[in-house]
């Protein structure tokens, strides 16, 4: 069986019951809550699960034991916040090969409360510690952000374009009750916000929240027999790649090789191109990242990303609705946001999003992990080809 072509489906998708501040639940508890919400959404139970994937600080075999799963297939691929896109892709391959029949993918992170979460620590012998941390490129806000001024200058763009991304996504978040930031904002307000790492101000940087999410993946054949068969979301194409965990070592600071490679494979395996996409989720850890994605995925040409956002194409009513939950900048960001990008894509394809876009049939989810280190891409649809 081909793992693409709509032969594999997401049949359960849910987040933790609430997101944002969860002071009374541990990180592993967020995994569990999301897992059971997603299984209930699918009309399945933990006993139906025979494959499991997750990423984060808790090893997958500890999670399966905690959840009570007897797995015959495990995937602990950990490539930062895009890991869950890889898991969907790997699960599809495993199911197509008969290695598992029902795969549960979970995420839970106590990013804000840090309850049951290991302390942040650095391996001081790592390449990053030796060649980046000691210069102050220690945290995402002061490392992931470093190439942005280069990107802007090479395109004749400006810092205002970073603020425009925030403003566009906040327009979506205004109508999303679960979003942490829902107050309309302006370019001037974003630019006048507290400086985090010039040129980045606070609202150009992702939130830090407590949250979890989970997905249930199975064959389309099995999906047809489930109570929510009409809500199944099918995998049309996918891709994955990596470049460098060191931001300084990108081949081109103004473009992600990993974005280009994984999105190319996703489009090719789906037999589709950018013009076929109705809805885009582009993992926005920081405001420059969606601009890279718009260009690297081929939605716009070189240097056109800023004007595309300014002209409203990614905003409500635009031609390419993007980050319609408000994104990591306004909705939620536990630390590994890829799970939430997939969740919103699924909601849009099911017609169940808070800011539902009319006529969404094909969605694209683009993830990023470990700064510009890794990239996963999914093409999803509510119709089997």
């Amino acid at each position, binding site marked *: 069986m081909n793992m693409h072509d709509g032969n594999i489906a997401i049949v359960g998708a849910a987040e933790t019951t609430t997101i944002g501040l969860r002071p009374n639940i541990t990180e592993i508890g967020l995994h569990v809550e999301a897992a059971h919400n997603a299984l209930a959404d699918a009309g399945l139970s933990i006993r139906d699960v025979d494959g499991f994937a997750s990423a984060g600080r808790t090893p997958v075999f500890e999670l399966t034991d905690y959840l009570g799963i007897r797995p015959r297939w495990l995937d602990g691929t950990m490539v930062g916040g895009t890991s869950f896109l890889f898991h969907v892709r790997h699960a599809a391959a495993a199911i197509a090969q008969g290695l598992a029949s029902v795969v549960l993918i979970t995420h839970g992170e106590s990013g804000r409360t840090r309850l049951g979460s290991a302390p942040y620590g650095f391996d001081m*012998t790592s390449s990053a510690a*030796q060649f980046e941390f000691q210069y*102050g490129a220690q945290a995402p806000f*002061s490392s992931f952000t*470093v190439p942005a001024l280069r990107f802007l200058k090479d395109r004749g763009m400006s810092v205002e374009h970073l603020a425009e991304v925030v403003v566009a996504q906040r327009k979506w978040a205004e109508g999303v009750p679960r979003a942490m930031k829902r107050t309309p904002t302006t370019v001037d307000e974003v630019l006048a916000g507290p400086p985090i790492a010039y*040129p*980045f101000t606070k609202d150009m940087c992702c939130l830090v929240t407590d949250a979890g999410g989970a997905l249930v993946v199975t064959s389309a054949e099995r999906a047809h027999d489930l109570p929510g068969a009409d809500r199944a979301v099918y995998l049309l194409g996918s891709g994955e790649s990596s470049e460098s965990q060191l931001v*300084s070592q990108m081949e081109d600071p103004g473009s992600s090789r990993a974005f280009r490679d994984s999105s190319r494979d996703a489009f090719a395996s789906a037999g589709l191109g950018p013009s076929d996409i109705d809805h885009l989720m582009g993992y926005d850890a920081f405001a420059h990242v969606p601009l890279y994605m718009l260009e690297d995925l081929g939605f716009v040409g070189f240097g056109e990303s800023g004007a595309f956002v300014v002209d409203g194409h990614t905003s409500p009513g635009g031609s390419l609705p993007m980050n319609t939950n408000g994104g990591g900048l306004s909705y939620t960001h536990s630390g590994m946001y890829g799970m939430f990008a997939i969740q919103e894509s699924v909601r849009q394809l099911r017609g169940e999003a808070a800011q539902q876009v009319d006529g969404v049939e094909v969605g694209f989810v683009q993830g990023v992990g470990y700064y510009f280190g890794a990239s996963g891409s999914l093409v999803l649809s509510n119709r089997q080809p």
Partner: protein
Amino acid sequence: MKPTPDTQHYWDAAANGELQIQWCNECATYYFYPRSNCPRCGSADVEWRRVSGAATLVSYVINGRPYPPLEPEPLIVALVQLAEGPRMMTNIVGVEPLPSSVELDMPLSVAFIERNGATIPVFTPKAVSA
């Protein structure tokens, strides 16, 4: 920061005030960061070479409040491209840590400072270092 067998030479050279990076004899190119094998062709036939220390500023952010063990003083976190080709993360020193102090593509020269018990390469604007 702790050197490893792959990186010890780099840090020893820095302690002597020299910026040395690796050169691959197979594909005749420099590469950075230090590794036993060339990332372009996989060859282990590589050697250390002292480079000029000339660079240009590719991009930067200003980290207003670095975390320990660094001092909580603003740092220009800079991506620079060496004249020999490779890029590296560093700091721009000898100027106020303000956007008005630097400009993309400006020429830079290597300098060495002590930080947390190690000698590390940093860069200064060429005019300042002359």
